């Protein structure tokens, strides 16, 4: 019985409703269903929470205000006044990833962010935005990003490829971090859950461990969303000031 449940089974994508346009498969899968649910919950929550606008905020309103203020302060401290224009993007990214991570922790649900293609799509969007913004604001001077000031001439052929590799690796680093963290956590929980079944009465030990792991996973779910938002700010701030 236990052999059939691999710890990686939770990441398989199942088609719920099959659809096709020409040769392109646009079926509704459990992944896209989760994303639609996340967007719905996010919109309903934020609209409902900020409806009353009381001076002394209630529970929901204070959650909405706290998340808003946290991301606002982050964009302010990383981007300065330019951050005001990019705040909506960073806030949307943060809330979307946070809710994807959190809803993935509910048993029998699906963790959207454990698939590297989804996190890579998000990260590559940020990367494209930062690159285009840099070239629009600075023109060809944006390429100074690859050549730090005060570098001796004989170091240039070594340093430029290094800077280029480190620039290209940014979206991959963002994507791998988020996906690997979510996947590793969920796999570990599943593995320890299988120990509970096998060990019988002594299964109480791994069960307690799972409880502790769940707390850690909740922390990581929040932290990864925050890290994604902070690094989005950092990368975009490079396109405003490429000289550093």
């Amino acid at each position: 019985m236990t052999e059939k449940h691999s710890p990686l089974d939770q990441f398989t994508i199942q088609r719920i409703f099959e659809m096709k346009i020409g040769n392109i498969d646009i079926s509704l899968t459990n992944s896209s269903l989760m994303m639609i649910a996340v967007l719905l919950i996010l919109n309903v929550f934020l609209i409902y929470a900020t409806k009353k606008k009381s001076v002394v905020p209630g529970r929901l309103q204070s959650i909405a205000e706290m998340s808003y203020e946290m991301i606002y302060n982050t964009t302010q401290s990383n981007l300065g006044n330019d951050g005001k224009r990019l705040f909506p993007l960073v806030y949307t990214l943060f809330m979307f990833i946070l809710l994807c991570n959190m809803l993935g922790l509910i048993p029998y649900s699906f963790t959207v962010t454990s698939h590297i293609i989804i996190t890579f799509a998000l990260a590559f969007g940020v990367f494209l935005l930062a690159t285009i913004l840099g070239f629009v604001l600075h023109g060809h001077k944006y390429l100074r990003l690859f050549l730090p000031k005060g570098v001796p001439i004989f170091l240039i052929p070594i340093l430029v490829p290094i800077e280029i590799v480190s620039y290209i690796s940014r979206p991959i680093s963002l994507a791998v971090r988020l996906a690997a963290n979510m996947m590793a956590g969920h796999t570990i929980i599943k593995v320890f859950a299988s120990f509970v079944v096998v060990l019988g009465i002594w299964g109480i030990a791994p069960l307690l461990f799972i409880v502790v792991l769940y707390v850690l996973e909740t922390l990581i779910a929040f932290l990864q969303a925050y890290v994604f938002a902070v690094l989005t700010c950092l990368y975009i701030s490079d396109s405003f000031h490429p000289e550093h």
Partner: protein
Amino acid sequence: MSNKKKVGEIDDSLKELTKKIDNIKKENINKSSKYQNKQFSGFSHAFKIVSDLFANILVGGAIGWTLDYYFNTKPILLIIFLIIGFISGIYTSYKSTKKLQNIE
């Protein structure tokens, strides 16, 4: 005459007051952002370094392999770019750590 002088003095003191208020506002912004950063900066920095090391080597290897494929120079460019990727991984984490130290 004396009235005009007083108006001038009031203007000066008003300017001083606005300066003071501006300074306090700036300090408050700095304080809140620093507090915000300190809570999670350690965690986020650790996560950043780990994945940066990994991603840089990956990208270096990918670039080297692709160039090898097009120029038919099989293992040479792959090895060179893997080394470059490794160096750039360490260089990136060194730079971001230095930035963090400057903020503190």
